[in-house]
């Protein structure tokens, strides 16, 4: 199983139309930009290749028109961390859920959803995790969130 930098070549070969901007800045890091509609297939591919540890899912807001979901995928046996970014439109951000592939994606997706309003399709329990329930729908981590700091 390829858990080193060659995975990026394999990944580009397998999903040539969905991968762009591949970059390998150091021995332990690799990054690429992916098509948001292919995220489950790509992750399944990586998981089959030995990248069995989803480190983190984060959202990044780039107003006025786009948002990013950033996946950090790594392995329990190798130091390579693959950073995959999927760009979403800001007015209707939605992306497929990874819960079936990585069990621990659940809470990360819930957190990203409640903070950014990025909808993860098929996430089994997409409800607020950290915020109080009355804050549902305010998306506080977006850059233009007006409630901060006055609503505290």
């Amino acid at each position: 199983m390829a858990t080193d930098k060659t995975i990026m070549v394999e990944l580009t070969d397998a999903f040539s139309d969905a991968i762009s901007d591949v970059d390998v800045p150091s021995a332990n890091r690799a990054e690429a930009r992916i098509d948001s509609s292919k995220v489950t297939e790509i992750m399944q591919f990586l998981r089959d290749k030995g990248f069995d540890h989803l480190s983190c899912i984060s959202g990044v807001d780039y107003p006025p028109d786009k948002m990013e979901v950033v996946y950090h995928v790594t392995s329990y046996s190798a130091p390579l961390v693959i950073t995959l970014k999927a760009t979403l439109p800001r007015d209707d951000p939605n992306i497929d859920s990874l819960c079936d592939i990585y069990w621990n994606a659940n809470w990360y997706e819930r957190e990203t959803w409640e903070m950014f309003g990025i909808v993860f399709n098929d996430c089994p329990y997409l409800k607020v995790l950290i915020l109080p329930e009355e804050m549902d729908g305010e998306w506080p981590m977006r850059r233009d969130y007006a409630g901060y700091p006055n609503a505290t």
Partner: protein
Amino acid sequence: MTHENTQITSPPSPSEILLHLGPQHPLQPGPFLLDLKIDGETIREAELKIGYIHKGMEKVFEDRTYIQIMPLTDRICYLASNANNDVYCRAVEELLGIEPTPRAKYLRVIANELNRIQSHLLGIGEYTTDVGFLTMFIYMVRERESIVSLLEAITGSRLNHNYARFGGVANDLPPNYKSMALKTLGEIGKLVKSHDEMMSSDSIYLKRTKGVGVLTDKVASELGVAGPPLRATGVEYDLRRIEPYLVYDDLDFKVITQQDGDVFSRVKVRLLEIQESIYIIEQCLDQIPSGPYKQHVTPYITRPKVGEVYTRIEDPRGELGMYLVSDGSNKPYRFRIRGPAFATAQALPPLLIGTYMADVAAIAASMDSCTSEVDR
């Protein structure tokens, strides 16, 4: 492992009770709500609800300059404040393209390992009270005091250290630190060993812990946990070894593993890691080079160039990562904290299903979750 295991799916039947463990409960290290559906004493379903001490740190950090964030990272998890400092500092250093001085690297390793020892000692202590072993808690806290004093001698504070700086550390070692540290650490090593023997030879303790809350290596990696709970299943996953940072390359240490994956092994891993950390500190004190402990020009107004970085280190609780996006200004554009306790907390409800009420305390405490860090 399915996601139904983390949720309470149906209302309790007449023979079952829905028990809300929390938000205030003697078992907890911080406020969280553990909903349990129990049948007699057996747990049928469990659901963890968090967010009671959500501090909005990721949002707050977007509004602070890089140097202002440094003391705030202590507050992510007060028991691992040095690890938080260190990972943040390394992330910014990577963005800035600078390296800490060689002496500072050793000093950071020393502080990190001392921090790991005190965190493990308190974690084991809390855990032993949860199996009803109050005496061991007080012993562990007593031992922790001297470790915290050692930390205080180099960092200047006992709980929130704020020790790392971009390119260096805040203070150098005080005079005669080596002899003082070696003496204390030798004593602590012996005491912890005797506590370990005391616990391992107690038949009631073994009954409470052996074979309870078993996490196999496959399930553990599926749940995405890291740190001592994963190493207790036999997986040698330690970022100090897999992705060596600072000077861990030059140091000789073992990655502690146990095979069983039960509560006993998780605590055993921590107990052995304390010994290993003591060994690492002893090596560091021997090998530490002389020289400056911080850069000549400490960048107070830090403006990293546009870019992003994901840095991770081995926290006392597992894999602590920080994802920083810089837009070239003096404040981070996005600051993401990937806490180890978040992952372990998520893995708690599936472990509880089918166990007894009394095991909730033992299992939850053996995962050594830190609510402050889960909520951030």
